[in-house]
């Protein structure tokens, strides 16, 4: 495995080659990724990613907050799938506490997570196609994304930084008419996916830019820590939702799209098919949505209802205690992984028995996936770098944290 290295050292002074700086402010780097390229004419000799331009120290900030105050911070890590981050963090803390979550909350979480996956894949598809030169797809994708953001706004009050999940359940009951709106969207959406596919899948220009480009083998992808569609595009059949289910995913029936080619086109098809599976899961969630409470029965952890707080003394005391001094979590550690749109997103939370987490570490799928870039691009043309970056679907907020 000695041929795999994420950071070949690039020094100036070679004769034939030239050093080219790409980014950090380059539209195709999807944020602030800087690449140092050594090129021989148009051919990439070596490529070295340089990250850290978006480092905010969120992990350090978490250590100074109460457990419930960390939830809004998790939105900001991967800003294209805030609900997936919320879910992963609350699942980790619930595991630390040993809380049982009522079925309705679990099903709502799954439904919203699948909508988030579609939302994230739409942004990916639009920008990826725009990078390669297919302008119109971007407008189509953002049209449907707007509908999903309206759904998020309806349920949580926020379009992007939702923070809708709470430790122990959900923040609010879904509003009246919400499920009807989701159903309308779910009925409409599969047709729209056909529209995107009509524009791209059979398009010869799209095929030339993506087929056989930035190939990676299954063995290399596993060794470099790839996960999610990037791994499944190389023929590894592994999806955390199916293979290590969490939050009630075992109640859903879905296929995991796997493609063998390991090129940009395979990763593209994998994500497009995932969108179809996700919308089918949203349908299943709507049809089988259980009735019941949306919060677990744990008054020391979960804020009481507003109504109760104003009428019951005990509820008021709990409310005051949770807000002012948080709740203590038994000492221990957990690693909770979920399948985010980009791959394995993991939260490692260590508790020392107090009301603030001792350590919160986020396993960023993109950080590992970015390490594939040199292996994908070396020996290929400069223009393929843009296609390769788009195909691993990076979010720099998650990489730098």
């Amino acid at each position: 495995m000695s041929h795999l290295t994420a950071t070949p050292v690039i020094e100036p002074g070679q004769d034939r080659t030239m050093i080219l700086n790409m980014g950090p402010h380059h539209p195709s780097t999807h944020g602030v990724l800087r690449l140092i390229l050594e090129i021989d004419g148009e051919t990439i000799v070596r490529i070295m990613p340089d990250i850290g331009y978006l480092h905010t120290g969120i992990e350090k900030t978490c250590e100074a907050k109460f457990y419930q105050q960390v939830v809004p911070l998790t939105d900001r890590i991967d800003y294209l799938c805030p609900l997936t981050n919320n879910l992963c963090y609350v699942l980790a803390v619930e595991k630390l506490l040993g809380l049982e979550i009522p079925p309705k909350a679990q099903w709502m979480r799954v439904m919203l997570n699948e909508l988030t996956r579609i939302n994230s894949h739409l942004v990916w598809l639009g920008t990826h196609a725009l990078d390669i030169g297919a302008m119109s797809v971007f407008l189509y994708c953002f049209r449907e994304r707007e509908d999903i953001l309206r759904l998020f706004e309806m349920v949580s009050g926020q379009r992007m930084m939702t923070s809708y999940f709470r430790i122990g359940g959900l923040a609010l009951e879904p509003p009246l008419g919400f499920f009807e709106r989701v159903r309308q969207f779910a009925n409409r959406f599969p047709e729209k996916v056909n529209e995107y596919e009509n524009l791209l899948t059979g398009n010869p220009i799209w095929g030339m830019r993506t087929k056989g480009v930035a190939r990676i083998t299954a063995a290399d992808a596993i060794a470099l820590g790839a996960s999610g569609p990037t791994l499944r595009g190389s023929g590894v059949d592994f999806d955390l939702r199916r293979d290590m289910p969490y939050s009630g995913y075992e109640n859903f029936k879905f296929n995991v799209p796997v493609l063998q080619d390991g090129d940009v086109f395979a990763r593209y098809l994998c994500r497009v098919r995932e969108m179809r599976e996700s919308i089918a899961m949203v349908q299943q969630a709507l049809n089988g949505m259980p009735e019941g409470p949306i919060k677990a029965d744990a008054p020391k952890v979960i804020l009481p209802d507003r109504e109760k707080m104003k009428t019951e003394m005990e509820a008021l005391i709990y409310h005051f205690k949770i807000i002012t001094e948080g709740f203590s979590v038994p000492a221990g550690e957990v690693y909770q992984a979920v399948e985010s749109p980009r791959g394995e997103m993991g939260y490692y939370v260590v508790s020392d028995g107090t009301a603030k987490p001792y350590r919160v570490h986020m396993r960023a799928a993109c950080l590992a996936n970015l390490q594939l870039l040199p292996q994908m691009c070396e020996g290929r043309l400069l223009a393929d770098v843009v296609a390769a970056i788009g195909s691993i679907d990076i979010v720099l907020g998650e990489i730098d944290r």
Partner: protein
Amino acid sequence: MPLSPAITDLEELKDHPALALLLAWNAAAVESAKYDRDEITIYVERSSIRDACVLLRDNRKCPFNFLADVTCVDWHPSEPRFEVIYHLLSIPQKERVRLKVRLEGSSPVIETVTSVWPAANFFEREVFDLFGVRFTGHPYLRRLLMPEDWEGNPMRKDYPVEGYR
């Protein structure tokens, strides 16, 4: 679902595939083990971490072929101060295991696992950057997230949250 207490008895846990492999290979390399909240943690002796990783990756029965994460926890001011944590995943068997190595605060040095999984490259650089743990044999041990000329290691517990002003 009340929490059941953690199991720390090696005898009770020896059926777990990862622990059974490590004990059969070199019982001296396993310092202790813990089963808590459905997750197994194995404390590995510092000098054998690389060989333990190779063993867990290459065995037939339950190959832990995927390195999910490498991170670190600072237990300042107690000693040993640092814990370097490896989360391994077996894609064929769908098993997880957590390896831990304790390091003294005076010399936080450990062998790299980049030769076992190239994925460790960025993870170890991040730990080096934020905690100041050195990985010997790493191909390119430089700061990853902080600027090159930054002083100090921000994730250490004796580094203030608001930074030095």
